């Protein structure tokens, strides 16, 4: 997000490339009521969790078919991480989005994913359903950190 622009301006920016096909901001505010409360504030005044909501909201304005998220939980409190992961799952289910989630917080990511791929030094070491990844103790200890 662009810190100097307001919440609403950041969201509008996300839909410019789509033109008339962009989602109305009312849809985004329905998903993220907190953003509507802060629509006129500069994005720099948002908390970490709100900034992530704004980033995701801006991406959704463009009505994407796939969402690529790069460590969205970075720097967030554990309670917010849980909320964020739940939100990502909800978006994938309700909007039919394909979500590619890159996360170091493997436990949280696996709790909402349909499939998990573990990479080590650029190589795939595991590509399984999340229950099987989480159930593999040696894999968990070696690569997932829990």
């Amino acid at each position, binding site marked *: *997000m*662009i810190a*100097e*622009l307001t919440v609403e301006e950041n969201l*509008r920016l*996300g839909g*410019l*490339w789509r033109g008339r096909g962009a989602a109305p901001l009312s849809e985004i505010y329905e998903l993220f009521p907190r953003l509507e409360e802060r629509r006129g504030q500069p994005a720099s005044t948002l908390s970490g969790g709100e900034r992530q909501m704004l980033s995701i909201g801006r991406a959704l304005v463009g009505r994407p078919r796939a969402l690529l998220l790069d460590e969205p939980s970075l720097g967030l409190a554990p309670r917010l991480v849980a909320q964020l992961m739940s939100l990502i799952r909800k978006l994938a289910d309700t909007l039919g989005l394909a979500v590619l989630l890159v996360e170091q917080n493997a436990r949280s990511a696996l709790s909402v994913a349909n499939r998990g791929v573990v990479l080590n030094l650029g190589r795939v070491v595991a590509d399984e359903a999340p229950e099987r990844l989480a159930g593999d103790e040696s894999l968990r200890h070696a690569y997932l950190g829990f």
Partner: protein
Amino acid sequence: MTKFIDLTLSGVSTGAIYAAVALALVLIWRATRIVNFAQGAMLMFTTFIASAVITSTGSYWFGFAVALLSGLVLGAIVERVLIRPVENAPALNAVILTLGLYILLVAVAGMIWGNQTRSFPSAFSLRGFEVGGTRLLFTPNDVFIVAVVIAVAAGLALLFRTTTLGLRMRAAAFAPEVARLLGVRVGRMFTVGWALAAMTGSLAGVLVAPSVFLGPNNFDPILITGFVAAVLGGLDSPPGAVVGGLLLGVALSYVAGYEGSALVPLAALVILVVVLMIRPTGLFSATKERRV
């Protein structure tokens, strides 16, 4: 009392011109992080074009319009041809380029129109208003200067705040890489920014020319005071540029009126030094917080 009123009003009028130059500098700084040292030469050149048009057509307003239009075109050409190739180079490259452009424009203006100073017509009467039997120094032309600069500043503010083009321009200025990823044609936005800034500078040129007269080097002091006004208001703040220009105009008017015009350049530099010492980011800059 009359003298104080005279100095204040004429300071506002001169300050409006400083504000226009400062606004041009700030627009370019915000967009491309370049101080345009050729701004004075650019507005001089377009004022010469306006003078030629006025002389040949007899129409001040046609010349006025041509000055603004040529400012738009000149700004766009300078950005596209000179600045764009060095946008990823060290900042010093762009500084040297603008200094070179200044030298080029002054030389070319001298070759085309000669180095002799000439007069430039004003838009309206230079006869001061009469109030209660006292003739003020403030003239209808001064009213026009203040009104048109405020109108242009307000117009630019509306453009940036309420239009999609303005949103794209601000996004390109604040975060060009993010803006590119969101489909903004950043290069094109920089060109538009330079064009609008140069047009604003051209406006200052035609407004100040009646008092400083027209010559290749006559507009250099305007660039200096415009720069001081921009620093005073905050290089990142267009409203600050306008307020800084007006405040500086009034301050320098008092210096000229009470202490003598010879002290005006010194006073401008003293104000610059004081601002840089006390609030280097300018009066209207936003405080940037830092995450720790």
